[in-house]
């Protein structure tokens, strides 16, 4: 009987021992991202983009002679789960760095874990300003995503040029929606004081039924709208708004932030997409004015993901890893402090151009593509045309 107990105890202990030790220790990078639920639509491609970079760099011999290894874990879109997997990856998998998180709640939560454990953390997607705000900033957090300030102001610049007076906003009621709408409203007031915010709607994050909000907004008769509903939320909203005549009422004068004109959104909606609105996206495979490096990269991506119309999210995962690899090379070490110092002011030639992380707040000058959507006979879904990269430098304080 005692032997049996001993066996069980041994088994239990064995289960806890992490498997596999490799010869030349690889550089392990923890990648916490959303792999289930509504956010998986963005999370999975982002992880693929990161993996594509790792495969490329390993084929070239790795970084400082060591291979990179990506450890991807599902955060389920919850900050407490993100914290849990981040800590597990640090304690159990012994990751050397963290790249990842998607929502504006996950990012700051994991940033705290990174700070405590002195692990360099690069956030490729969360936009909330709070991630790099003065009271939350620390030596180990960096962001290659855009910010709510940049997005709100870019959108305001676009709407300010329209011949309208009554403007409305609709945003999911949490940090991201609140922050980006605030930036939008403040900037619009400055550059277009003749315009008036006549209505603001705040559906909860993950709202199923937008019709009460749609009706309420239409009743105030706005002439233009700034929306920051993203991903599946924007899809649901549009599916419900279109039959009610919402887009006709505003004459399609909408700027859909939150990547509302990204290829996956227009693809998913097909014929239901309210063609004619403006929107933004991190990337677009059909971006004709782009440099040759971009076109080549898109071809590589299409082959890697086996998708002739690749998603716009892999680039963020890819860029996050690019910055990490470059910083390690520049520091000639994988020690957190040295790599963190090397990140400051680092410029990298990314597939969309040269991006720099500024020293002041560890924020990259990552703008987004904006454009008006049209139907193009070449593709079975709407695209932005013309599509312009809005440089964010003048929007960053």
């Amino acid at each position, binding site marked *: 009987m005692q032997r049996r107990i001993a066996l069980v105890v041994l088994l*239990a202990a064995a*289960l*806890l021992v*992490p498997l596999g030790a490799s010869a030349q220790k690889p550089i392990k990078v923890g990648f916490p991202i959303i*792999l*289930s639920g509504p956010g998986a639509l963005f999370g999975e491609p982002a992880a693929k983009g990161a993996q594509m970079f790792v495969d490329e760099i390993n084929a070239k011999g790795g970084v400082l002679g060591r291979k990179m290894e990506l450890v991807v*874990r*599902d955060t389920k879109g*919850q*900050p*407490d*789960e993100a*914290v*849990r*997997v981040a*800590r*597990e990856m640090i*304690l*159990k*998998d012994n990751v050397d760095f963290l790249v990842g998180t998607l929502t*504006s*709640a996950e990012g*700051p*939560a994991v940033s*705290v*874990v990174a700070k*405590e454990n002195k692990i360099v953390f690069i956030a490729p997607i969360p936009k909330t300003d*709070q991630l790099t705000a003065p009271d939350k900033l620390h030596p180990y957090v960096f962001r290659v995503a855009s910010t709510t300030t940049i997005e709100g102001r870019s959108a305001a610049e676009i709407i300010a040029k329209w011949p309208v007076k009554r403007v409305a906003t609709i945003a999911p009621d*949490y*940090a991201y929606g609140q922050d980006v709408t605030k930036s939008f409203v403040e900037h619009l007031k400055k550059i277009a004081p003749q315009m008036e915010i006549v209505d603001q709607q705040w559906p909860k*994050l993950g709202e199923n039924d937008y019709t009460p909000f749609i009706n309420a907004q239409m009743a105030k008769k706005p002439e233009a709208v700034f929306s920051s509903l993203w991903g599946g939320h924007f899809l649901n909203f549009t599916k419900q708004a279109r039959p009610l005549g919402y887009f006709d009422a505003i004459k399609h004068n909408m700027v859909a932030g939150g990547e509302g004109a990204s290829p996956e959104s227009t693809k998913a909606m097909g014929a239901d997409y309210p063609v004619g609105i403006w929107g933004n996206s991190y990337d677009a495979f059909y971006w004709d004015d782009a440099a040759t490096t971009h076109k080549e990269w898109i071809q590589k991506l299409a082959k890697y993901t086996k998708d002739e119309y690749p998603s716009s999210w892999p680039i963020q995962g890819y860029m996050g890893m690019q910055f990490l690899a470059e910083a390690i090379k520049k520091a000639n070490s994988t020690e957190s402090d040295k790599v963190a110092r090397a990140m400051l002011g680092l410029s990298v030639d990314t597939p969309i151009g040269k991006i720099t992380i500024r020293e002041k707040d560890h924020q990259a000058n990552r703008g987004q593509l904006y454009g008006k959507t049209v139907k193009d006979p070449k593709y079975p879904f709407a695209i932005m045309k013309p599509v312009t990269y809005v440089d964010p430098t003048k929007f960053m304080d």
Partner: protein
Amino acid sequence: MRRVPWGVLVVMAALFVPALGSRFYTFVANDVAIMGLFAVSLNVLIGYTGLVSFGHAAYFGIGAYTTGILMKKLTLPFVLAFPAAGVVAALFALVFGFFCVRLTKIYFAMLTLAFAQIVWAICFKWNGVTGGEQGLPEIPYPDLAWMQKLPFFGELRGSDHFYLLSVVLVAVCYWALHRVVASPFGRMLTTIRENPERAEFIGVNVQRYELIAFVIAGMFAGLAGGLFGIFNRGAFPDFAYWTKSSEVLIMTLLGGMGSFWGPAVGALVLLVLNQQITSYTEYWPFVLGTVLIVILFAFPGGIVGALESARARLGTRHA
């Protein structure tokens, strides 16, 4: 069959974990200890009183935020902030429980759920106090500098110090809860679970007993939450979300509702299993669901129930 003091042995073993030197083992052990307490507190309601609550996580969350806010924003010492978690959670349990115990079965469960979701919503929206959906990060460790001065413990890390403290506190809580359920009060709860009408006939004020059980369960869940907020280095609204309630419900079932320690065993097994499986596959829900179905059909007494019936069978063979 000698009465082995399993409880004492487990606590001693737990205290030795930091000596193994792995931060990860200490992390897992800390998680298990606290969640075990949470599950055992729920079992006071389910296993002993027969009340199925879908909203037990509310008190867990309230405890976590109470300790977190007191320690971080008001810089109160742990000595005050920790019991406060229990007290505040007990108060909420008193108010919510008052309405819940007037209902039975499914209605009771749904009202506990409703209150828990309201607690969650308040934590989610009250940016000023709870930090909103970003949560309350960077809850400080209690001041454990005095531990540095002790002989063996000086070399251990801060997280290890906290682990030892939480093991001691959790052990005290287990002891207290065990006293409660073994007392005449506890036996009355079991009587109520078996047959509430009969209990009424013999003059027992069933609702009053149920309310007291509810408050006790809530209080200890709050204490568990207070510890967890510090352990997790942050409190989040999802601590009160119904999925957390379902997690602890599963732990209770998995380990076995029929025994005092069952839910703690369930917590251990579930957490370790979750850990291991999520390293290999993203389809953890599928695995968990299948395990649950197997347990429900083959081992309704949970793990502890299965072990006990196996032991009984072995015992009769040797007799």
